[in-house]
């Protein structure tokens, strides 16, 4: 009974098509999307577009160490003579893999637990949320560090250590959405058809709980990359000779005043990637929120 709109206008647009449309209308989010596409392409094509592909992995050239940016090495070389640009491109792979793996793991664990806790409520729900609270009570980085120290430092360790601290946020987010869905008409209708709880959760609660999670995922990606960089910086994540931006920053920081390019470019890479993810996520959040509520 609100505004009579011309029939073609739709109030809410579920699904990917809607998201794409929103992003296109928000300039900043569009920039973020373009940047991300470029970063992902760069990561995928790293072996083919890097000037010195071997430098991305095991090669070292001690004779060419710490060369300033030039026409043969656009971004210079690091302490062991590896091309910084190449390391940057290979580092994109590592960072993106870490981001995707962490978020996938955290989302799967968090959303599953959150949906169950939110929809079922009661004792089970309380139990899950208290466990979530316990994890949230730890300062994330400390927990990650503790885990990483126990396990052998590596990219896999970094992934596990970060995912462990990240899932509670998704659990909480999903639980709050799921508990509001519990009382919707279509859930009642399903219950009146004796649809088993498992199926109600899978077919109704889960799909309708995902939108805020998706938005949060894009916002978190930048944060995960930063955290992974921190772990590497502290020596607990990716190890030599893997290219990883945080590791590069850690190794290059002492050289900042003399050979600035070694730390600056990976630092910029982290910044730009985190920025792109954030801006995309904000665009999604802003675009979806006003359209979300029908009441």
């Amino acid at each position, binding site marked *: 009974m*609100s505004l009579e709109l011309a029939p073609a206008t739709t109030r809410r647009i579920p699904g990917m098509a809607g998201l794409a449309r929103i992003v296109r209308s928000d300039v900043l989010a569009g920039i973020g999307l373009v940047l991300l596409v470029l970063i992902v392409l760069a990561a995928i094509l790293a072996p083919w577009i890097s000037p010195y592909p071997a430098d991305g992995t095991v090669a070292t050239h001690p004779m060419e160490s710490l060369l300033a940016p030039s026409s043969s090495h656009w971004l210079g070389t690091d302490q062991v003579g590896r091309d910084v640009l190449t390391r940057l491109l290979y580092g994109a792979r590592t960072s993106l893999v870490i981001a995707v793996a962490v978020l996938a793991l955290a989302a799967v664990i968090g959303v599953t637990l959150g949906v169950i806790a939110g929809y079922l409520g009661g004792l089970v729900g309380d139990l899950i949320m208290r466990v979530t609270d316990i994890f949230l009570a730890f300062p994330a980085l400390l927990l990650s560090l503790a885990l990483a120290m126990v396990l052998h430092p590596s990219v896999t360790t970094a992934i596990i250590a970060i995912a462990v601290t990240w899932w509670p946020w998704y659990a909480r987010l999903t639980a709050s959405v799921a508990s509001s869905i519990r009382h919707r008409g279509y859930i009642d209708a399903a219950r009146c058809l004796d649809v088993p709880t498992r199926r109600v959760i899978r077919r109704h609660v889960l799909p309708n709980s995902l939108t805020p999670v998706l938005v949060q995922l894009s916002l978190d990606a930048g944060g995960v990359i930063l955290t992974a960089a921190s772990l590497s910086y502290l020596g607990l994540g990716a190890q030599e000779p893997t290219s990883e931006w945080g590791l590069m920053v850690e190794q290059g920081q002492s050289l900042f005043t003399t050979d600035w390019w070694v730390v600056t470019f990976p630092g910029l890479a982290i910044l730009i990637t985190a920025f792109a993810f954030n801006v995309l996520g904000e665009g999604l959040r802003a675009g979806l929120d006003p359209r979300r509520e029908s009441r």
Partner: protein
Amino acid sequence: MSSIVERLEPVVRVRDLVVGYGGCQVASLPELDLLPGQCIALVGGSGSGKTTSLLAILGLLGRSASVTGSIRTCGVDVLTATGAGLRAIRGSRIALIMQSPQESFNPTTRFGALMRRTLALHGVRGKDAEARIARSLSNVQLPAEILRRYPHQVSGGQAQRLAIALAVALGAEVIAADEPTSALDVTVQAEVVALLQRLRAERGLAVLLVSHDLALVSTVADRIVVMQSGTVVDAGTPREIVTQSQVPYTRELIAAVPTLDGADE
């Protein structure tokens, strides 16, 4: 009586109003004169253009709407007025009441704070504001303690009466109401309508009412304008519309009114 009324300046004067969205005509209102103390109702089903017309009169249509014609509301030419010009009349001269009262209010603000803040926005503060608030509450027959409540703590009917109280406190001469009773129970609808009637009689308030409920408006309007698919198809006094109209859409609206049946189905 009618000759006196004719000499009064209309508070809302519309001529040749046409509203379009993206090339599609959505509403067309050729003529409307709302005199002080009068009640005109725009009636029709969804998509009839009645709400769009109301919003156009208040200058509340977004930039994506193309609006042509002449609209003069409380002395302001709505189509050419600046933001400041429109703000000067909105609230303090013409107040808008919407269908879902609890949703028009900020859920985190108590009613008292809301009223004081709104009055302050229109330059009324301190003792003057308190006096106006107290008077308006007694006008709508709500207890003073409702000022301490939050929107979700009151019933729909109470929230709607509070919206009317706010309009009264601001000194509005015109109330524009968009389906003010559609979200309320029938028992409460009658109360809200009775309140509007009383305010008209006591304070000379003019009312521009939008509704899909012909029965409801027939008890309160001086004049009914029937709209269908964006155009005016019928107009007249309630008696003319209900007893004499031959327009098919009007007759449909009349037939659709649920009346108390002796259950002879």
